[in-house]
């Protein structure tokens, strides 16, 4: 059901991990729906994304779109990164099954959320960037086993 590229990015995800003291961190998605993406950006003084890492809870498509999104934003300027759409992520992966399109939307949102965090931390305004929805549901109690 998945393209070879999706399988490759799922089985060998690029840029998994965290960035200590990242310039921006964004977490999107919802544990209820089974998808959470967290994206870390390291951005230099010229607003160029030097590094990008991710962590994702989700299906094969969610992991693969996260991985591809990190590849796409690396080396881009903040403004360029903002223009990366879910369509671009999907195309780069040679497509996704229809039921998985929402995973690519999550990747786009994760980039935006991380950029928003960066802008807030630095007190700057990025043209065309809206405050991301936060629906991670952290208020939910963790159950002990």
């Amino acid at each position, binding site marked *: 059901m998945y393209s070879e590229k999706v399988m490759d990015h*799922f*089985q060998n995800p690029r840029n998994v991990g965290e960035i200590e003291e990242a310039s921006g961190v964004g977490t999107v998605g919802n*544990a*209820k729906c*089974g998808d959470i993406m967290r994206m870390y950006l390291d951005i230099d003084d010229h607003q160029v994304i030097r590094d990008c890492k991710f962590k994702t*809870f*989700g*299906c*094969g498509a969610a992991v693969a779109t996260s991985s591809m999104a990190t590849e796409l934003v690396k080396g881009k300027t903040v403004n360029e990164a903002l223009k990366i759409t879910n369509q671009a992520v999907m195309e780069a992966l040679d497509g996704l099954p229809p039921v998985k399109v929402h995973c690519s939307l999550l990747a786009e949102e994760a980039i935006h959320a991380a950029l928003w965090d960066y802008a807030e931390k630095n007190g700057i305004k990025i043209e065309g960037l809206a405050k991301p929805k936060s629906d991670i549901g*952290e208020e939910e109690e963790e159950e002990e086993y």
Partner: protein
Amino acid sequence: MADKIIYMDNAATTPVRPEALAAMLPYFTEKFGNPSSIYRISAENKNAITTAREKIAETIHTTAENIYFTAGGSESDNWAIKAAAEAYAEKGKHIITSKIEHHAVLHTCEYLEKHGFEVTYLDVDENGLVDLKQLEASIRPDTILISVMFANNEIGTVEPIAEIGAIAKNHGVLFHTDAVQAYTKENIDVEAMHIDMLSASGHKIGGPKGIGFLYIRKGVKIRSLIHGGAQERRRRAGTENVTGIIGMAKAAELAVSEQKEITEKEKKIRDHLIARIEKEIPYARLNGDREKRLANNVNFSFRFIEGESMLIMLDGKGICASSGSACTSGSLDPSHVLLAIGLPHEIAHGSLRLTVSDQTTLEEADFVVDSLKEIVEKLRSMSPLYEDFIKNNK
């Protein structure tokens, strides 16, 4: 090892047993006659079907006249519920079922709700067992049918069928059970258990796909499913699936006669898997009842990770399993069974079902656990939920 397939999805389907296949083969070619025709080759086929029907009847302690061949478990469930609802609508329009039924039952009940019937969906406890007191309290003067599954397909919990049958009988309500998973694995006695209708399927027990049966107790009013011929006592017309019937009967006969040995072998593997997973993988929860459980079912939720990812990685190692995650169902909600036993969504998303057979070896089970440990660790290392959990618990 990835070239070798380790099949741990026997609740989804099973390979046809060689003995069943051998019994079927002549009926594709030389014994091709239509059982309803008059000449000898057809009369022989009619006899073969009669013998198969008798064999099937024996496996659930009834007589052949009460066995109706269908195309499988889903058809049997649909037929039993819709046709009984229609036949008894004058008495009442209330049906009782449970929240953890197979969709063949649940969606049929939802369909009936759109056509004027009322349905009570019984809760289950954290192990998936229905509450007999709630069941009895739900019975009303207009209740016409109780449908509770014999054993659950996801978590393997075996319901108190004899007790439910007794309650139904006392109140004069029909009792149907979906026994697709339990058939030949659990002892089924439709008389002792007061079961009025029972659904079963061929391909879950080493028989072929596309064949099943519905047991209907003599005297139960039920409308015909398919009109147009005298087959199945006119209740399900159409030329019989001769090869399917022969194959299912052979598989059922063998499975019941070997039940004790098969169950022992399966339980050994099942308990080995459960023990190793509980000991070696942290934050894992066994779903389903520990004791009242099908011999071949293992179902765990692994916190912080998602089921489909697990399945793809297991597949990469040649392991076939299944999950109750949303991503494997095409919807956004995880399995209704896991939600009904009270699991939060994110934990239900991380479920894994392994269903073994008597052919599964301890070596295979060990390979599965070793692979699973590696996969769970890898997915947790990528999971933001695990990252938060570790940070919050430092």
